[in-house]
């Protein structure tokens, strides 16, 4: 079992304690939530990057220079 550090701020007592099954389950649920959140974030970033590349290509096709595109996008 993973362990947790517990610091009692009133007494100063410290303990390294094995996590309970419930706490391990919560840890697994948290890890899953983080992974889903990060995947959603990455998908959003990828979509933005794709839209930017598409916009740059269209501007290039209209005859704008790279410097002009850079100034716009």
């Amino acid at each position, binding site marked *: 079992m993973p362990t947790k550090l517990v610091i*009692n701020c*009133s007494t100063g007592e410290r303990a390294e304690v094995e996590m309970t099954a419930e706490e391990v389950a919560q840890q697994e649920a*948290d890890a899953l*939530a983080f992974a889903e959140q990060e995947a959603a974030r990455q998908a*959003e970033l990828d979509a933005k990057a794709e839209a930017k590349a598409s916009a740059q290509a269209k501007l290039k096709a209209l005859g704008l220079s790279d410097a002009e595109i850079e100034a716009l996008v």
Partner: protein
Amino acid sequence: MATFNLIQTVTVGAGGAATINFTSIPQIYTDLIVYLSGRYDNAVSFNAGALRFNNDSGNNYSYRVLRGNGSSVDSFSGTTSYIEFGTNQGSGSTANIFGSHSAYIPNYAGSTFKSVSMDQVAENNAIETRMQLTSGLWSSTSAITLITIFPGGGYNWVQYSSASLYGISKT
């Protein structure tokens, strides 16, 4: 004049730890500050950490992050069962480098919702850095008596990760 009072500080031992828990937090200060120096036992380069209060694992936390990595910036928000607390390195980053974070929690003993402001940095030498500002909210009127700090990916804090809890008093 405000005074910083060290309540407790802890350094993770050789076996690592999945969470760091400050319990029975005295209710005698106006505000709290958490400082964290953290690194994970996983092969990731970077991954997020998290804060949770009073063992509340409901979706009662919301936050917005502004983040830069040295070459690009982004912003995101979430309503989750934790508040994201910066980014730390794993073994995919340069050895022996730890993320550095602080969280300011005003009016932690009051009966209003609890706001948190955080700043965090982590770097992978000469390759990438992560800098992050976070505003967070715990939608609870309960006084904060327990703070849990944990790696978001389900990893462990490695040895020499450390956390300190300070109380701010008016005098």
